[in-house]
Structure formats: structure tokens, C-alpha cells
């Protein structure tokens, strides 16, 4: 079921049991000076899922995940990561967390093999860096300096570095930003491999297609608040609006028949072009009706709302609500 937390009501109690809940955040707040960037944010991340945090630039995504990793202090709220308090137990958590930060790099002249060897050593040599290099197809780049790597190769290296301590939880912040489509899809494949290795992944992104493709569940952050949480499918069903069915039909007046079908909410006819809006059941009903009339339009198409539509709806609603609140004061 889709959980919507647009109000600042009490969130579920956070437990210290790390069995299934890997991250539990309750009523998190953070300000920089007078600017409140994270407002009463609550969410949970479950074991071995890819959890997406989606939002515009400046929505509070990076701040949230940096606080969860213990890299920044929260102003308020309660956080448990693998049963630990990241602010208090950061050193203990480090060995269980792999991380790729949005704004971080390596020295330009550091070679791939040197980076892998160094970070593996820092992590206590729990993995063989040469095996890691081979697994992530970095072995042919071992002598290449970081500054000479392509965008996709850099991200592959960051992913490998995030895994040198065999983490149970991996944070990936805007991993595919600036990559070309081919490199992005290659990176997606690698992210799924991390999860397949048994780790839980928190993926921060503002790319809708990426989140929809990869994430088991998604939290939409807007203006520092969690606007909605759910699986991509749940969010689309809840917030995505009507499914559109389109086709062309000659020599038939189907409007009234289609409008009476179960799940159909609106029928628009423009000459021979039909556009039927409705629930996810509506296209099936429309197709059956057309078949009953002996019609099989070759241009029959169904347009399902995407996560992008959900995002625009959610953030648009919130903007509208904020405007109304402001006008009401």
C-alpha cells in the first residue's frame, strides 16, 4: 500500500532490531542557517532492497543520506542504521557501509590499481583487490590514472571502491549524473549486481527512469519533506492519474458504449480518433468491446502513467498546497 506522509504527523516507532529494517529514520530535521533543508522526514529501508530517494536538485536528498551515514549531524529526529546510531557509532558503522558520494573524487594522478589497493588496505584487506578489479572489469585499467578514466569507468571504480569492505549497506548518490545513455545502462546493471551480492542499496537520483527501473521502493522528497513512499507501481497507481487508451475506429459510434464501460472515466472523440481515460482495467474493457464490434485497430495503444507523471503530480500538488497555505496566512 502506498504511504503518503505530506503532513508532519507522528511516524512509526523506530526499533533497534536490524533483522529486516536496515535503516529507520524518524522525524529527521536539518537546517543550514535559517534555511530548513530536511523537514520531519521519516522512512525505512528494508534488507536487500534497492530503495530510491527521488527529488529535484536541492530537495534535501544528499543531506538526508549524509546524515544517515553519519557524515553530518541532524538537528532533530531519530536514526538507526543496522541497529546503530550513525552519529554516535560512525566508526563501527564504517565497516558495514559502502558509499559513493555525489561530490567526491580521487586524486587525478592516482591509478586504478593504486586506488583499489589503498582502499582495500584501509578496509583491512577483507577482499582481494585484484579479484575486485577483475569482477568489475577494471583489471585492464589498472595502470590508468583516475583523471584519464571516462565517466562510466570512474563510476565503475567508485562502485568497486564502495565494495572493498564487503558492505551490508551501500549508498549511491547521483551515480549516473553526467553519463551518456549507454554508460548509464551499464551502471544500472552494476547496481543490480550489488544487490544480487546481498547488499541493501540506497540510490539517490533525480532521474525518474533510473529509479523506476531499479528501485523496489521509492521515497519522493520535495522541499525537504517526504511527499510519498511506495513501490514505483504503487506510486503510479496512487498518484499517476488515468491510463490512456488510444485508437482510430472508422464507421462506428463507440463513444457512449465506451463511456459506460467499467473503469472508464472519460472518452474523447475527435473524428475517428478515440482517447479513453480510465483505471488500469479500462484498456482491457476497451479492447474487449472493440473485439466484440469486430474492430482490431492497428494503432491501438495504451499509455500508462510513468513515475515522472507521479513526480510532477506530487510536487505540483505540494507546490499548490504551499501556495494556498501562504495565501491563507
Amino acid at each position: 500500500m502506498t504511504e503518503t506522509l505530506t503532513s508532519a504527523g507522528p511516524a512509526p516507532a523506530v526499533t533497534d532490531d536490524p533483522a529486516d529494517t536496515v535503516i529507520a529514520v524518524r522525524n529527521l530535521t536539518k537546517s543550514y542557517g535559517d534555511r530548513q533543508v530536511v523537514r520531519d522526514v521519516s522512512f525505512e529501508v528494508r534488507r536487500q532492497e534497492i530503495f530510491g530517494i527521488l527529488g529535484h536538485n536541492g530537495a534535501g536528498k544528499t543531506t538526508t543520506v549524509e546524515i544517515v551515514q553519519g557524515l553530518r549531524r541532524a538537528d532533530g529526529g531519530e536514526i538507526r542504521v543496522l541497529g546503530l546510531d550513525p552519529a554516535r557509532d560512525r566508526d563501527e558503522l564504517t565497516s558495514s557501509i559502502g558509499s559513493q558520494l555525489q561530490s567526491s573524487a580521487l586524486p587525478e594522478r592516482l591509478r586504478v590499481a593504486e586506488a583499489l589497493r589503498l582502499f582495500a588496505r584501509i578496509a583491512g584487506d577483507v577482499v582481494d583487490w585484484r579479484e575486485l578489479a577483475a569482477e568489475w572489469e577494471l583489471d585492464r585499467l589498472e595502470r590508468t590514472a583516475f583523471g584519464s578514466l571516462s565517466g562510466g569507468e570512474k563510476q565503475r571504480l567508485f562502485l568497486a571502491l564502495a565494495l572493498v569492505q564487503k558492505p551490508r549497506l551501500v549508498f549511491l548518490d547521483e551515480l549516473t549524473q553526467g553519463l551518456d545513455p549507454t554508460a548509464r545502462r551499464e551502471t544500472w546493471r552494476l547496481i543490480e549486481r550489488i544487490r544480487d551480492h546481498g547488499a541493501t542499496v540506497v540510490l539517490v537520483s533525480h532521474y525518474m527512469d533510473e529509479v523506476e527501473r531499479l528501485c523496489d521502493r521509492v521515497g519522493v522528497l520535495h522541499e525537504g519533506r517526504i511527499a510519498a513512499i511506495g513501490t514505483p507501481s504503487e506510486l503510479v497507481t496512487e498518484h499517476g492519474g488515468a491510463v490512456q487508451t488510444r485508437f482510430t475506429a472508422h464507421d462506428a459510434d463507440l463513444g457512449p458504449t465506451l463511456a459506460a464501460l467499467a473503469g472508464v472515466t472519460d472518452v474523447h472523440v475527435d473524428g475517428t480518433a478515440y482517447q479513453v481515460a480510465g483505471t488500469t482495467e479500462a484498456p482491457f474493457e476497451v479492447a474487449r468491446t472493440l473485439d466484440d464490434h469486430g474492430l482490431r485497430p492497428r494503432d491501438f495503444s495504451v499509455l500508462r502513467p510513468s513515475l515522472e507523471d507521479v513526480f510532477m503530480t506530487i510536487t505540483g500538488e505540494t507546490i499548490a498546497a504551499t501556495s494556498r497555505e501562504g495565501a491563507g496566512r
Partner: protein
Amino acid sequence: MSTLTALSVTEGKLYAREWGMLVFAFAFPPLMMVILAGVFAGEGFDEVWGATGGTDYYIASYLGIPLASVALTGLPVMLASYRELGILRRFEVSGVKATTVVTAQALVGLATVALGAVLVLAVAAPVYGVPAIEDPLGVLVVLALGSGAMLTLGVALGLALRTSRAANAIGMLLFLPMFILGGGGPPAGVMTSAMSNVADLMPLTHITEGLRQAWLFGDLQATELLWLAGWWAVALALVALVARTRRSFQ
């Protein structure tokens, strides 16, 4: 191998790939020493130079010049670029504290300074001959205190300045006057009293003066050590201030 050792080894390799820094640490001091010691070879033993010749004056002084070039033109740029590019944060998420990275860079700086000083001697020996060291322990004490003061100053600059460009510009702005007035340029005896007073405020002046006194005369002055200890304290306070202002080194 500890994290600090592994990091220091890697940082050393990275430093060795930075040609601009290598030139300032290893080529510039011996080159300038050879030129100035040669230009003023016939000078000395008067009220300008004191009880020494121009050649020995510059050989002894230039032992301290790599320290200034590394501390002001190398270390701050490396550190500032690490902050600017998020490399310190990258290390931090892997459990490496910023203080460990800073310490590793300072250790590499120290090794570079030692190598630079050896190069000055190695170049001076066949060209002019190296004067006898009257007080080796005194020379080491000056180098140790001077290294502490200058490298800490370099760390403070690297942490305070937000970009490597700024660190490069400010570092050069500090290095060049300090180099010219602090022992790398004309002797203090030819300076006006105003310039001489400015030079007295600079840590490099007390490093080169302390080196000459200990090396050539076996007469290490406590005043030079106090100046260097004072500068070290100031540099440490600056590092603490930057850390407190930013709450961390990120």
C-alpha cells in the same frame, strides 16, 4: 601496514607525479644556490656578510629553502585540491579521518624537504665544496623546529583556502617575499632597516639565520629557536581556528 603508512606511501607516489611541485622542491633551490653562491663568491667577511664568505652564506641558507617551497607552494595546493574535489570526504566515508590524510601529506612534505636539502648539498659539494658543519645537532634542531612551523603553516593555508587556485596564488604570494627577504635573496646587511624589520617577522629568516649560525659558527642563537617555536604555535592556532570554524576539515 597501517592506514597512515599506506596513505603516506600513496601520497608520496602522487607527489612524485606533480612536476610543478617537484621543480620547486628539487630544482629551484639548488639552481638558485649555485647562481647566488657563484655571483657572490668574491664577497664576504665584512659588515654586510659577517664573518663568512658569500658562497658559504648561500650554501648554508639554501638548506632551508626547500622547506619554504614545499610548505608554501606544494602542501597547501595539494590539501586545498583534496578539499575542493571532495577527496577528503571520499576518504572519510571509508573511515579515514581528515587528520590522517593531512598527517600523511605533511609526512610526505617532510620527506620532500629532506630530499630537497640533500640535493642542495649534493649540488654544492662538487661545485663549491660544502663548508664544515660546526654544530650538526644545532642544524638538526633548526630544521626540526623550522619544519614544524612551516609545514603546519602550509597545512593551515591548505585547509583555510577553498580552492587549489587560491592556495597556489596565496602560497606564491607568501613564498616569494619570504624567499627574497628571508635568506634566499640579498643578505640582511644590505637591506634598509624597514625591509630588515619585515624580514625579521618571517619564519624563513629565522630558519636560514639559525642554520648559518649553527652550521658556520657553531653558535645557535636561542632567539631564532624562540621565533620558530612562536611561529609553530601561531600555525597550530590557525589550524585549530580553521577546524573550529568549519567544524571539520571537509
